[in-house]
């Protein structure tokens, strides 16, 4: 736990600084009310009415996030293997990892062929 105390100390310092700056920015600047200024900026035209909650966005982003989770978990499995790599005896560690990566590669090839990696 002692190892984590400096992280918390720096985190508190950074949070204090960022919070102070954000509040200071609101207090130190001038305030001149103007209706047009408070609208969302769209290069001068009237802003598009935004649905509550941000509305819809392309499903591509959702797909990218899902793929990210799959492959990020794969990488998380690779890390302990890499750290312990020097302690494996013989070909066992390598073959196990080749099998695992091959399994994930099947999913990767499937996504590729189905066009999940195309962005248009």
């Amino acid at each position, binding site marked *: 736990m*002692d*190892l*984590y*105390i*400096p*992280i918390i*100390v*720096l*985190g508190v*310092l*950074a*949070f204090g*600084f*960022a*919070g102070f*700056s*954000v509040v*200071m*920015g*609101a207090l*130190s*600047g*001038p*305030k001149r009310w103007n209706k047009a200024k*408070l*609208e*969302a*900026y*769209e*290069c001068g*035209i009237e*802003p*598009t009415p*935004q649905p509550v909650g*941000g*509305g819809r*966005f392309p499903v591509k*982003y959702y797909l*990218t*996030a899902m*793929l*990210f989770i799959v492959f*990020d978990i794969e*990488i998380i499995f*690779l*890390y302990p293997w*890499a*750290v312990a*790599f*020097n302690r*494996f005896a*013989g070909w066992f*560690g*390598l073959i196990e*990892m*080749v099998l695992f*990566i091959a399994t994930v*590669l099947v999913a990767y090839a499937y996504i590729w062929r189905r066009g999940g*990696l195309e962005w*248009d």
Partner: protein
Amino acid sequence: MKCTTEGIAGFGCDPWWLIGGKALVIFVFLVLTVLLSMWVERRVIGRMQLRIGPNRCGPFGLLQGLADGVKLALKEDIVPAGVDKVVFWLAPVVSAVPAFISFIIIPFGPTVSIFGHQTQLQGTDLPVAVLLVLAMSSMGIYGIVLAGWSSMSPYSLLGGLRSSAQMISYEIAMSLSFVAVFMFAGSMSTSQIVAGQQHIWYGVLLLPSFLIYIITMMGESNRIPFDLPEGEGELVGGFHTEYSSLKFAMFFLAEYINLATLSALATTLFLGGWHAPPPITTIWAGANSGWWPVLWFLIKIWAFIFFFIWLRGSLPRVRYDQLMKLGWKVLMPISLGWILLVATIRTASREGLNQTQLLIYGGITIAVVLVGSFAWDLVATSGRQVDPYAEPERATAAEPAQGGFPVPPLDLPHYHGVLPETAARKEVSSGTH
């Protein structure tokens, strides 16, 4: 508690004043680096574009960053009417805090004596130190997404989404480029990784990993050539379009701190950390002890920051589909293949295979892959043989009546000025996109 041991065991036993002092020094170092790198960037870019760059605030314009900060603080802090207030205020903080935290595990130098206390020049070290940096960079993405979402503006939303999709895509290739380093160092702690590079830098030993890291580092930092989230022509400012005053400054600060962190991580993992460059150590044995390593570390970091700026001055922006294609279809498979290659070679050399055997087995593998791909090609194309001597089909211009695209005739008369029926234009409400 004994604190003189090297490695992980040497951490976690600093007195309270040293913990606070180190955190404060890292904090001040980061803020100064941001101010200085803003100045360096603008000066260097200025020179590259045959301009002078800022030279009015202080000597050589060195105080330009500070002047910008003060100016931002004195500007009106606009909170647009439709925004989600809580998230809008929280996003800059969420973006800035993780950026600071990542730097705590970066080793600045070896063990030194501070007021009679032996300590290593590093905030702290964990058995999973590099994972902390990855986690914090993911937390920073939350700030960007929340900023884009809470602004209730199409530009902000699209900018935030683009930015996060880009960063998570490149984070995969980036995390994969670390695996080979962990394999050689046998640890994820930054001090151990630096200690493992005493004789040869991993950037030389694992050059493909290093190159992949450099490319993904550009993608992670949202800078040219991958600065799609801020493509000015399309998205104005991207996720921070609606931000002003010091809230905007927090995003700016986070971006430049991330630049410094990525440079420091590259230095630590691939360029030997605080170790002196090889020619210096052969001439001068004391280069790797005392406070000198801090100098080598800073030189390496600034070389990377200069490299970032240099790229910004030289490269155009890529297209978004090219960016995603590079991340998912090129960098990721290459990284995975490289990891397997390194693992195979290391296992083989550990198992006592000599070079002849390695070459034979490698040759057999390559032959099998080639024959396999040839057989696959035969099977896949056997169904659709094309007669090379057949007359090619003439491309016929499809008429609109036959379902072709309606193209206006080329001999249409030009008109100048406004036609009577279009002169009185009806007002059109602005469309969605």
